[in-house]
């Protein structure tokens, strides 16, 4: 019995089919993970949220003059489920990066199977392009579905559950929008780059994890500065405006000359004493520079754009490393002899 095909009328190498075949176990695992996550997020956004909202309604209806009973278990169950789903979803780029570094490029170069592919009718450039494009499609599709369902679940709880996470909670912020998808793509590219650079699976896995965490941290650190924030100025008696309603960029005192200065540490026991101390420093009010909920969309998009730009940079770097590794990526024009 032989299963060898004869050359058909095809001209271009069927690389796609083989990348899918070689990584079939991972693809199946990814599909399973996405389906499981989707099912859990639907459960979170549906029955769990409804039960917890009922519990909160009962709680809010209590007048506390008498014994009051409310479904505390439902509230706690929602909270646990939300946290246990949000954190892994936020950490998904780490998984993608580790896999890309270890399995997508690192192991291939370590075992020499990358060279095996290049010794067939496949140029290194096409090899890398296919190896990046196919996982990028799978990662984009799977992660997009998950963040969409997460956002849906989060919205269902908004205003109904007292302990629901605010939109600006770092994990919630990213898992609610496309920035997690973009970060996963950046992780894919940085993992591929690490694998090509180190050419060994295990070190590439470790470096990919660290680099992905770095990219995540960088995106989170730069995020508030990627869209102009609003500044609210209020009188000293009024206190800060908009505190704990969004992402704070800066806060402090406004002086008589309009200068913004940091709020000095006040260890007095009463607010009055502190206000007198502020007045001594020429303060006339407070300022609060922050992003209100209306900025969620622009912040998500600019953060995603930043992550995608990083993904692009890592991809270019990966092709440059590959060129250094193998020489010309494409067959050059007939060289002179």
């Amino acid at each position, binding site marked *: *019995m032989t299963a060898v*095909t004869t050359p058909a009328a095809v*001209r271009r190498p069927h690389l796609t089919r*083989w990348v899918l*075949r070689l990584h079939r176990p991972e693809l199946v695992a990814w599909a399973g993970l996405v389906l499981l996550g989707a099912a859990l997020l639907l459960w979170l956004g549906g029955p769990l949220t409804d039960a917890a909202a009922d519990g909160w309604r009962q709680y809010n209806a209590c007048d506390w003059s008498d014994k009051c009973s409310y479904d505390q278990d439902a509230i706690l169950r929602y909270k646990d489920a939300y946290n246990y789903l949000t954190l892994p979803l936020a950490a998904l780029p780490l998984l993608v990066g580790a896999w890309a570094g270890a399995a997508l490029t690192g192991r291939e170069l370590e075992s020499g199977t990358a060279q095996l592919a*290049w010794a067939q009718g496949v140029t290194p450039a096409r090899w890398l392009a296919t190896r990046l494009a196919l996982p990028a499609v799978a990662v984009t599709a799977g992660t997009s579905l998950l963040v969409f369902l997460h956002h849906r679940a989060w919205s269902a709880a908004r205003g109904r559950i007292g302990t629901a996470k605010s939109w600006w909670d770092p994990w919630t912020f990213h898992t609610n929008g496309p920035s997690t998808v973009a970060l996963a793509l950046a992780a894919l590219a940085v993992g591929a780059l690490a694998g090509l650079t180190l050419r060994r699976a295990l070190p590439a896995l470790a470096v990919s994890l660290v680099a992905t965490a770095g990219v995540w941290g960088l995106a989170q650190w730069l995020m508030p500065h990627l869209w102009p924030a609003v500044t609210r100025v209020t009188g000293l008696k009024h206190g800060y405006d908009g505190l704990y309603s969004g992402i704070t960029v800066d806060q402090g005192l406004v002086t008589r000359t309009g200068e913004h200065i940091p709020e000095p540490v006040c260890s007095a026991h009463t607010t009055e004493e502190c206000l007198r101390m502020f007045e001594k420093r020429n303060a006339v009010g407070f300022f609060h520079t922050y992003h209100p909920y209306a900025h969620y969309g622009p912040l998500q998009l600019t953060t995603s754009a930043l992550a995608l730009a990083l993904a692009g940079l890592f991809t270019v770097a990966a092709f440059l490393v590959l060129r250094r*590794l*193998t020489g010309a990526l494409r067959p050059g024009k007939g*060289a002179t002899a």
Partner: protein
Amino acid sequence: MSDTALEATGLGKRFGRRGGWALRDAAFRLPAGRVCALVGPNGAGKSTLLALAAGLLPPTEGRLTVLGGTPAGARARVGFVAQDKPLYPQLTVAETLRMGADLNPERWDAATAEQVVAGGDLDPRSRIRSLSGGQRTRVALALALGKRPELLLLDEPMADLDPLARHELMGTLMAEAAQYGTTIVMSSHVVAELEDSCDHLLLAGSGRIRLAGEIDDLLAAHLRVSGAAESTDLSAHTVVESRVTGRQLTALIRPAGPLPGDLRTSVPSLEELVLAHLRNPGAPALSAAPAVTQGSAA
């Protein structure tokens, strides 16, 4: 099609900026259609030279022309089997060959590939990871031969094979070379392994190409001489190696003219020639191939 399979000028490869040179100043020309033995001790630069020719490594300096073009441009027409015979462990034998067919759609010769595998009594359904070293070699060779390459580069192809398989596969390779005019370069650190099958020699030692040319020409260019130690003057000739035992001098030389009549001379064996050059790295290199490139494809 170029009449030159491989041509190197000043070819060198260094790994890392501060690493040592794996290969340096290599200059040789391998005409198309030859079966070439690439011989040298471990670490001589054989694998590096083959990887450079396969377009899997860029040279650090110098130039290497493969089938009249760049190594990268020739990749589709070159078959390469690396020393550790990398294959995808999760694929079956049949899938591996089907991959060869899919990745080389214009050149794939299924019959040849199947024949090489069938010779080893391999179940096409067995996974690569379950195969022995020799069986893997067989599949790797099938993948390289199925591509119907114009130039076949084999890095220690016979190392894992039992004598029977070695004989059979060598026969397959020779038949391939005879039928399609395939140029074959195979490396080994054992000269005797390749002596009967090859007509061309590249001898690598310490990262240099020490001898290059038709084996017959190389042998004809050397003489083993012996005579009385005190009366023999070989200074007019290139002495590769000389040894004095008592009053007797024996030497391997490249004669540059008529020899004194009282010397006994004999033609060295290939093994003697190779060993003498490896023992004496100071001996000048010799390239016995025609140095002129004749009308290679532009």
